């Protein structure tokens, strides 16, 4: 009876090791979908939710937790800003649904309060939210399924914002192509709901929350993105871009507070891309 018992212990050991690794690392191990299943001749992906519907549910589940907390906390500040500016809650909610990019929303409300012209507001918001373009360009090839109508992509693009983009860039490459868009829409839709709840709560609680608490809530946003990026350092190009951006961001902000983000993105990003290309050419 000894051999089967040993065999069973081996399996247990393997399982335990895998379980431990998942617990320790949090994120699924980096596996490239290279091998194919001979029976179905379909590619195998490390994360398979089974169906697009279940992928959407997985996206919603993933959103409930740190991402929902982050969006709720970030939009608390926006809600209270809307109240302090004298705008109605309806305007705040409409802004969150229609714009869905916080820095631009804040710029708009502040400029509106200052009585800026519509043209000035348009230019300022466009400048603040220009980051949506490189984000959408990199995310769409991952999400779209060839042959599906384009209007779906344009509709889903409205949900592109920093959090959903960053999480989808990490998670979606591990999924079969048909499950990526549902995952992203489920995830982004859920955090949009959290943002709306945050807007309402911020509007109602404006002035009630102690200063220290509101400072902690404001800090949730940078904390989250820093940890999200630190938790996924699999791609050399991205890591280089993060380092270049981290150094360039404060420097350019000291030089020009208006154009600092665009300059940081373009100069830091091109520099990181060039370094990555050079290293690749030398087969490092």
């Amino acid at each position, binding site marked *: 009876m000894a051999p089967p018992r040993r065999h069973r212990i081996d399996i247990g050991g393997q399982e335990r090791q895998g379980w431990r690794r998942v617990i320790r690392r949090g994120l699924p191990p980096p596996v490239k979908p290279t091998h194919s299943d001979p029976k179905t001749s379909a590619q195998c992906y490390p994360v398979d939710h089974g169906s697009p519907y279940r992928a959407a549910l997985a996206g919603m589940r993933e959103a409930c937790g740190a991402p929902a907390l982050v969006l709720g*906390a970030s939009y608390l500040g926006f809600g209270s800003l809307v109240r302090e500016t004298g705008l109605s809650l309806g305007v705040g909610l409409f802004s969150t649904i229609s714009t869905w990019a916080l820095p631009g929303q804040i710029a708009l409300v502040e400029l509106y309060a200052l009585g800026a012209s519509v043209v000035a507001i348009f230019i300022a918001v466009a400048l603040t939210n220009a980051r949506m373009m490189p984000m959408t360009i990199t995310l769409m090839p991952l999400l779209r399924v060839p042959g599906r109508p*384009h209007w779906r992509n344009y509709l889903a*693009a409205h949900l592109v914002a920093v959090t959903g983009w960053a999480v989808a860039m990490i998670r979606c490459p591990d999924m079969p192509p048909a499950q990526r868009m549902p995952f992203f829409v489920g995830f982004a839709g859920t955090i949009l709901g959290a943002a709306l709840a945050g807007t309402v709560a911020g509007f109602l609680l404006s002035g009630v929350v102690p200063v220290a608490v509101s400072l902690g809530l404001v800090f949730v946003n940078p904390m989250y993105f820093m940890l999200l990026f630190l938790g996924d350092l699999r791609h050399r190009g991205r890591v280089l871009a993060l380092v270049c951006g981290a150094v360039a961001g404060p420097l350019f902000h000291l030089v020009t507070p208006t154009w600092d983000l665009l300059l940081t993105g373009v100069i830091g990003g091109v520099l990181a891309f060039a370094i990555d290309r050079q290293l690749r050419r030398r087969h490092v």
Partner: protein
Amino acid sequence: MSDTGWAALWPYGVVLVGAAATYIWRALGVALSGRIRADSPVLDLFGCIAYALLAGLVVRMIVLPVGPLQATGMGSRLAAVALGIAAFFIFRRNLLVGVATGAVTLAALAFWPPP
């Protein structure tokens, strides 16, 4: 009467202008990404731009904040970041624990300012 009715709609119109200014970039991104092959290096370039921009934004928010965080000291913010990162890795890369630790630390340091 109808004048005040239209005036109440004005903020919605302004918000819609801001929404259009934002969506233009997304639509442009979808249109351009359709012309780029999925394995094209151009895609890597745009990815690098997006990541550099976001990293710059996050570090700027911590090191040179604009807005309410200006009221906190640099030491407090860096201490909150350090504790948040430590908690994140100690608790097996748990985002919720890391984020909460950083935010609570900053709130505590704002409430009881260090000497």
